[in-house]
């Protein structure tokens, strides 16, 4: 008949074994089986405690290794081919922002000059910022938000274009006053 100490030893090692990684469970079961051949109850408890520690360590080491391997595989995204694709999408975003800026400057500026007379335009200097800054930056923001979920690299390119335009305007304003 099993004593309470032995029962506890079996339960402890059994529980740790069942909750460990699959690769460690064989070792846990091996130690668990050896308990049947240990005569003294207290010795069986020390055996179970040591065994549980060994299984736990083995299991943690396996989990840590697979975690690291997962991270390395994930980093595999950054292969030369993928970096090229990412850069191409980023460049396309920048090109789109440059195109939008050109369309805005040429189109909106022409539209403004057709709608507003030159005399009125002299009084409304701020209108000049519309085609070169306000409208393009607004479109960039909307496009980047719209593309962020599905075409993130392209959206990043557009954001890059928006930042470049903003910096250019700031530099222009500060150096031409």
């Amino acid at each position, binding site marked *: 008949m099993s004593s309470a100490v032995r029962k506890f030893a079996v339960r402890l090692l059994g529980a740790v074994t069942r909750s460990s990684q699959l690769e460690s469970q064989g070792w846990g079961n091996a*130690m668990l089986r050896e308990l049947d051949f240990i005569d003294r109850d207290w010795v069986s408890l020390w055996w179970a405690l*040591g065994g549980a520690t060994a299984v736990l360590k083995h299991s943690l080491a396996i989990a840590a290794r697979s975690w690291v391997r997962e991270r390395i595989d994930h980093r595999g995204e950054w292969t030369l081919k993928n970096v090229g694709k990412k850069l191409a999408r980023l460049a396309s975003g920048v090109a789109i922002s440059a195109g939008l800026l050109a369309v805005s400057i040429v189109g909106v500026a022409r539209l403004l000059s057709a709608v507003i007379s030159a005399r009125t335009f002299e009084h409304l200097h701020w209108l000049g910022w519309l085609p070169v800054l306000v409208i393009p930056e607004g479109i960039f923001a909307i496009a980047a938000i719209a593309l962020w979920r599905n075409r993130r690299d392209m959206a990043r390119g557009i954001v890059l274009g928006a930042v470049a335009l903003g910096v250019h305007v700031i530099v222009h304003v500060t150096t031409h006053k």
Partner: protein
Amino acid sequence: MVPRLRLSPQTLQVLDAFLEAPKDWKYGYDISRDTGLKSGTLYPILMRLADRELLETSWETTEPGKPPRHLYRLTASGLRFAREHVVHDVAGSRVLDLRGAKS
């Protein structure tokens, strides 16, 4: 080539225990009694040796209805490795060699 293995005095003790009867399969508890190592020390060593294919394992079913028992024996490369690192003194008693501690 054997992958890097930390050769602690306890590992050498285990290898030495296997060298007593290199062809025989051994039970974990018997190795523990032979070496005086507790399960928490012995099994990590057995795991490392098995990982490096220096140790082969087997399940032995003796009694029906009872779960099988795990057995251990050195592989051919394990045997070579053990003989390289566990040497005998002139009198015949075993001396544990720590020269290859970084093998």
